[in-house]
């Protein structure tokens, strides 16, 4: 097999190949490291870790030789730079952590390595996971491997897990880790033509992942197939006594029962996700998705989630409020950037002013404001009540349906140079993903087709808490019906667009 062939394998196929001895983990890692080096123009990386990758691959080969292969042994993956990795620079896409090397390993990455996966790279991301475009990274924007049909302008990969999404779409990694707070896995998956899964809040440990909004943040996988996403999820999910919000319930073998059989499942289609301004191609793809599921034997049920329109405003109160507090620790005192000054307050101001980019500063300001005396009840407390109503909407809907189908995002990938001076317009990218985040529900984005411009579009499947199996099942039915090529970005030139 050529190196290119190796990078185009799915995880399940690669595990087969490794098991058969068709190639070694080292060969697999080397092929991906070459692809990684060839695609630096995407700016998808913050820190490449080729030495670790080869060492881990060799260890993997040694295990396999002894007949002790682990579930993901030898599978090369990319890791969002939000996850602390022991001895490896971890920046969260921010200048304020430009020199931060954690002496500890996050729980989910530790679980990935314990399953035999091989770390290739720490990927670029929106600063502190705040963004939907990867334009807020201190380390520069990530370029999507996708291009529109008639428009050569570079496109964003979505965000905030933009580097992780681009790496999988560009065949640099077989899978990757992202985090999703309001859509930061699902939206870039949609923009990048791959599968992105946000598990139920509490399904994966947050320990060692740099916090953005603690009540919303959740780790999850990107992959080029639903099955591969299921394999990765199984490796990273599970209770962690070090995270008080992680939930102690068994982790099923998500891939084992996966056959895309949706016969008899009731699929909800919420009226509120079809605003008048929804682009026609997205509305059409959604209708197509509904038809595919109906054809596959599912029952389609019209539902209402009445508080949907309140979700985005409430999210943009709760998430910044938590962020304003979570980011207080970056003060120049113990680690990370310090801009010296004569007085303490000056040092704080200089450090945080230089260390945080504009979007992070904006959200810290918003969050500080909504928690302030006199405004707390009007903003933060009201947003919490709205959040409870959103959760109730879903709970009621899930008494009637087994899963919900919506578009993932209201647009396809926009050009890097699209105007970004209006933050509200940017925030609207999350309009379909935020409600499930507020309710803590699992959601997946499956690539289902191309936009009028020829860019990927995803469909989102939402499920009951901890019902990832049903979510995956519906996603696989869509995947099968859509026949979308997640490596489509590479198809014309067999290389990432320059």
């Amino acid at each position, binding site marked *: 097999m050529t190196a290119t062939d190796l990078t185009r394998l799915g995880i399940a196929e690669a595990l087969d190949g490794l098991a058969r001895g068709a190639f070694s983990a080292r060969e697999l890692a080397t092929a991906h490291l070459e692809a990684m080096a060839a695609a630096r123009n995407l700016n998808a990386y913050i820190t490449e870790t080729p030495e670790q990758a080869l060492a881990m691959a060799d260890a993997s080969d040694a295990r396999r030789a002894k007949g002790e292969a682990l579930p993901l042994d030898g599978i090369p993956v990319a890791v969002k730079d939000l*996850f*602390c990795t022991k001895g490896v620079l*971890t920046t*969260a896409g921010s200048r304020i*952590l430009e020199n*931060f090397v*954690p*002496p*500890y390993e*996050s729980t989910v990455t530790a679980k990935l390595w314990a399953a035999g996966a091989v770390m290739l790279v720490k990927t670029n991301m929106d600063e502190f996971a705040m963004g939907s475009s990867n334009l807020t990274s201190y380390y520069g924007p990530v370029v999507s491997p996708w291009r529109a049909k008639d428009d050569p302008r570079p496109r964003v990969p979505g965000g905030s897990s933009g580097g992780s999404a681009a790496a999988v779409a560009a065949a640099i990694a077989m899978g990757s880790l992202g985090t999703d707070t309001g859509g930061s896995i699902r939206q870039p998956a949609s923009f990048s033509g791959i599968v992105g899964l946000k598990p139920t809040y509490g399904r994966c440990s*947050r*320990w*060692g*992942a*740099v*916090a953005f*909004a*603690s*009540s919303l943040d959740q780790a999850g996988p990107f992959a080029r197939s639903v099955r591969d996403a299921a394999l990765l999820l199984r490796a990273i999910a599970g209770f962690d*006594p*070090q*995270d*008080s*919000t992680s939930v102690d319930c068994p982790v099923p073998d998500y891939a084992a029962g996966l056959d895309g059989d949706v016969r008899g499942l009731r699929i909800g289609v919420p009226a509120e996700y079809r605003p008048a301004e929804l682009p026609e191609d997205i509305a059409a793809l959604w209708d197509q998705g509904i038809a595919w599921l109906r054809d596959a034997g599912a029952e389609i049920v019209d539902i209402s989630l009445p508080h949907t329109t309140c979700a985005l405003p409430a999210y943009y109160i709760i998430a910044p*409020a*938590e962020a*304003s*507090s979570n*980011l*207080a*620790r970056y*003060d120049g*005192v*113990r*680690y990370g950037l310090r801009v010296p000054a004569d007085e*303490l307050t000056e040092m*704080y101001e200089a450090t945080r002013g230089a260390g945080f980019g504009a979007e992070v500063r904006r959200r810290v300001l918003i969050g*500080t404001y909504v*928690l*302030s*005396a006199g405004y*707390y009840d009007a903003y*933060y407390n009201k947003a919490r009540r709205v959040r409870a109503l959103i959760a109730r909407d879903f709970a009621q809907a899930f008494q009637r349906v087994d899963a919900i189908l919506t578009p993932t995002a209201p647009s396809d990938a926009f050009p890097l140079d699209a105007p970004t001076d209006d933050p509200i317009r940017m925030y609207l990218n999350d309009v379909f993903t935020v409600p499930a985040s507020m309710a803590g529900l699992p959601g997946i984005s499956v690539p289902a087709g191309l936009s009028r411009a020829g860019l990927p579009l995803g469909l989102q499947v939402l499920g009951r808490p901890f019902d990832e199996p049903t979510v995956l099942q519906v996603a696989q039915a869509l995947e099968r019906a859509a026949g979308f090529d997640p490596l489509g970005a590479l198809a014309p030139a067999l290389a990432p667009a320059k």
Partner: protein
Amino acid sequence: MLIRGETGDWEMVLGLEVHAQVTSQAKLFSGASTAFGGEPNTQVSLIDAAMPGMLPVINEMCVRQAVLTGLGLNARINLTSVFDRKNYFYPDLPQGYQISQYTQPIVGAGVITIDLPDGSTKPVRIARLHLEQDAGKSLHDQDPHRTFIDLNRAGVALMEIVSEPDMRSPDEAAAYVTKLRAILRYLGTCDGNMEQGNLRADVNVSVRRPGEPFGTRCEIKNVNSIRFIRQAIEYEARRQIEILEDGGTVEQETRLFDARKGETRSMRSKEEAHDYRYFPDPDLLPLVLDPDWVEELRRSLPELPDAKRERFMRDFGLSAYDASVLVAEKETAAYYEALIDGGRRDPKLAANWVISELYGRLNRTGTPIEQSPVGAGALGELLDLIADGTITARTAKDVFDTMIETGRSAAAIVEEKGLKQITDTAAIEAAIAAVLDANPDKIADYRAGNEKLMGWFVGQVMRATGGKANPKLLNETLREKLKG
């Protein structure tokens, strides 16, 4: 207590917020040690240092201690409580917020009884008790230009115990802290060590004309001894009265107590007060207690000072004063109970010995009772020697001095120094005869009606016998001889 001002009487109104360090091996949300006195920054976990991605996990021991304390304060235990973040920037606060409890504390309203110097008692209501993290320590004296930070204390569990404004004098405030401290120490939930800062108080002071509504209060932060609490209150009440009598108004503010000058001074005004932006900590779920577990703790409560004092008075016939002294410190009460050995030894005699003899000697060297060179068992043996007539009470005091000095047993000292009481009639008669023979004039005096001389004769004979003569035998025999 009323204070006389230039324009009439004033009454002070006092409420206290006591910060008590929870006795626990590990911190409130991390596994780092809470031991006092470690080298700076040697007891700091990744969580305490607020490294990126670190998460708090509640220490069950600290919850248990808070619930025990709530039960000891006769307070309501809230089966659901919530941890909030109190946000502010300071270098010794690594997270940029303190995890505390704001609207839903673990313990609600309670009440304790305080003992006042005149022997009366008074209830003081507890408003609430909540759990929170301590901050680290800023070291300003290590370098001329820089401040150093020691995070050993950062994250240690504190109980903030808030009283209602029920106290009206420095005595009452002192009695409140004394009683609270005793209860905490009995429960083993706080060691009460004020010198190490393990128990410190914010004192809220206001003044008013008797019968009028509360005045504006000032909060004096972090006062760390009962003496300073008294001084701070006295000074602050005077200050406020002077302002009011001059026609001014008291500004609500936070003040510091300067122990060297014995005065309070402004720290920050109400306008400068922090906006802490409290909100529920999203890293922690609400703390939900199992009612059965709480009941189990209630059943396991040790006997507390008030109950113990009642029992000492009832079962041992002690005076209220003696009983109060003995129960004030858990260690004293334990010593006393070991000494009387279940009532086998005379409780009143034992009380006298602990309060007068033992305390007198320990105080001279500043030795705490738990480090007394003479343990309860050894002192008990001494009391037994008095009870069985082996030595006189007077001899016993000398023996006790030697015990304190040498740590040797009473029996050994009595044996070695030949201090056994003389109960031999002939020996006592001989000693009496010698004294009488030497003082014929005094005998005449006595027989002429000056019976006060009896005591003088007893003293002479005692001196001659080295204090060892059996007092009863001596008295009887002497009286007989003096009759002539």
